[in-house]
């Protein structure tokens, strides 16, 4: 393992992570706030013999990625929320063929064209569905630039391990922030051989493989097979972070960049004698249901903080089964009304004080 420290943005860190994971293909369409990622790959991929393609749309991006990964090689596409909408059919197609692929969504705010600034309004979209058909992608939510780098590498490993699409759900604030990170190449256990890959190889004779987005399966065996796979993922791939949960009377549950803001508020609350702790899911799917329930065991109250209108909130309610009263603080508590506003620690701390008084 080689280690080198650099100052870089979350967007660049995704690029570093992908190249460290052996990814040699990027395709994507320009969209703010992720434009640093294609620029990174356009500069760096040729140096390692990789391929960069700027596409005509996100629809094309996801289908081009489908074609590339069908050959059994590691590839990535990145986008932001409206582009992620355009990719949904292709994401569903990748799931239908059970191809390993990594898609990054550096979220921007709101519906439609939305803002170009940060938000967490794509939680349901990324976590609850992968286009039509009811498939589920593994969803990783980085909260720091270092995690952008680390989780991108993990994403490639998990994609190959399970033949599944993995979404890295970043946002504008992590994507655009620069932090000191350690560049390292992780050693993961070996993943299954890609015997399903299309190689265009003359060595294979006879009736050859056809990867099919159209009825390649019969429902009574296909869906149980997918269920078996997701059961393994749900049992073995849950990841989360917890801080000060041992004695926490107030458990704050938050994800991604907002968890950093919540942590700041928790430190403030601790200084005032409020026993607060943080639970942060890193995998949004598989959702850390049992771990969250364990963390909330001694909590008198739970506060969910998200930079949206309350999306993970429903998963928290499902996970905790009413074991503690749950409050929510979200996008309406930003410092500015417009799209450029941010959630700051102050309203979170005020809400914590109110809850514990």
């Amino acid at each position, binding site marked *: 393992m080689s280690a080198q420290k650099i100052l870089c943005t979350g967007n660049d860190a995704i690029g570093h992570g992908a190249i460290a994971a052996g990814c040699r*293909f990027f*395709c994507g369409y320009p969209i703010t706030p992720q434009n640093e990622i294609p620029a990174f790959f356009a500069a760096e991929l040729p140096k390692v013999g990789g*391929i960069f*393609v700027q*596409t*005509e*749309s996100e*629809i*094309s*991006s996801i*289908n*081009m*990625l*489908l*074609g*590339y*990964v*069908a*050959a059994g*090689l590691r*590839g990535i596409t990145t986008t932001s929320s409206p582009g992620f909408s355009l990719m949904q*059919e*292709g994401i569903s*197609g990748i799931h239908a063929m059970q191809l390993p692929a990594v898609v990054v969504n550096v979220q921007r705010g709101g519906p439609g064209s939305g803002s170009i600034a940060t938000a967490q309004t794509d939680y349901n979209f990324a976590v609850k569905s992968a286009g039509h058909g009811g498939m589920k992608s593994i969803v990783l939510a980085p909260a720091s630039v270092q995690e952008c780098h680390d989780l991108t590498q993990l994403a490639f490993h998990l994609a190959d391990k399970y033949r599944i699409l993995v979404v890295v759900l970043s946002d504008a604030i992590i994507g655009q922030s620069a932090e000191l990170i350690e560049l390292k190449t992780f050693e993961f256990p070996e993943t299954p051989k890609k015997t399903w890959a*299309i*190689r*265009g*190889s*003359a*060595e*294979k*004779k*006879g*009736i*050859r*493989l*056809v*990867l*099919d*987005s*159209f009825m390649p399966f019969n429902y009574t065996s296909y869906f149980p097979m997918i269920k078996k796979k997701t059961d393994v993922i749900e049992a073995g791939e849950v990841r989360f972070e917890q801080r000060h949960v041992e004695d926490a009377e107030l458990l704050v549950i938050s994800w991604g960049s907002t968890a950093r803001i919540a942590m700041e508020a928790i430190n403030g609350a601790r200084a005032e004698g409020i026993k607060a702790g943080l639970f942060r899911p890193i995998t949004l799917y598989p959702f850390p249901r049992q771990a969250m329930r364990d963390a909330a065991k001694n909590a008198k109250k739970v506060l969910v903080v998200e930079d949206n209108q309350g999306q993970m909130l429903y998963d928290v309610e499902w996970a905790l089964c009413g074991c503690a009263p749950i409050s929510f603080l979200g996008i309406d508590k930003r410092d500015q009304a417009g799209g450029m506003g941010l959630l700051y620690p102050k309203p979170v701390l005020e809400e914590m004080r109110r809850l514990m008084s």
Partner: protein
Amino acid sequence: MSAKKLKYGNPTLFNTMMQPHFCPGCHYGSIVRALAEALEETGVVGDTVLVTGIGCSMVSAHYIKNLEGLVALHGRAPAVATGLKRALGKDKLVITMQGDGDLSAIGMGEIIAAVNRFEKLTTIFLNNANFGTTGGQAAPTSLAGQVTPTTPQGKDVETWGFPIHMAELLTNFKSVVYSFRGAMNTHKNYNRTKKALVTAIEKQKANMGYSFVEILSACPPGHHVKAQDSLKLVEKLIEEFPLGEFKNTGRPV
């Protein structure tokens, strides 16, 4: 034509285990056969991947032995083929086979962008002037006045526009090194089209640029007529869409 020149039976690459699923009178079976022959003649089978679109052409790869295939989403075959070609490199051939709904309606963006990106791909465009798989709805290729489930009064060019000429359109791109339109309605047209497929494959083999072969096809159930009347429609199609070679050039750079 002398009897001994006629070739009967199947090309050696034809997968006879696959039950034919094309409708009686459809030309797709002949097109797949012509492709099998062209692949054999050019010696590229085994090094070729066929990316099919959504429509009746989607199962085509199953009919040809030693051919890997991928069924793309509707209209996206050129994007998928780009990904595959970039992954496999220039020694492998990637061919897309797309119908007129797939390529000239929903997939117009992908074909134009792939062509303009100077991809070294080959596209076989099956033009039967309707959406055959979904019941014969009007396509961008349908003739003026053509009666379909979505143009019950006949296709009105005032609101539907004119039939789109893909083979001619793509000649405008520097990156296109070969563009041809053929048909399958006569023995002669079959042979010319097969030759065109050979040329198109050779162009990709030589890494020259994009090659495009449009093939007019009958579709009795889609046209809602008997097989012989569908053939008559192909003759009308030929009046609208002239057959022949529109472009045949060397590498543009």
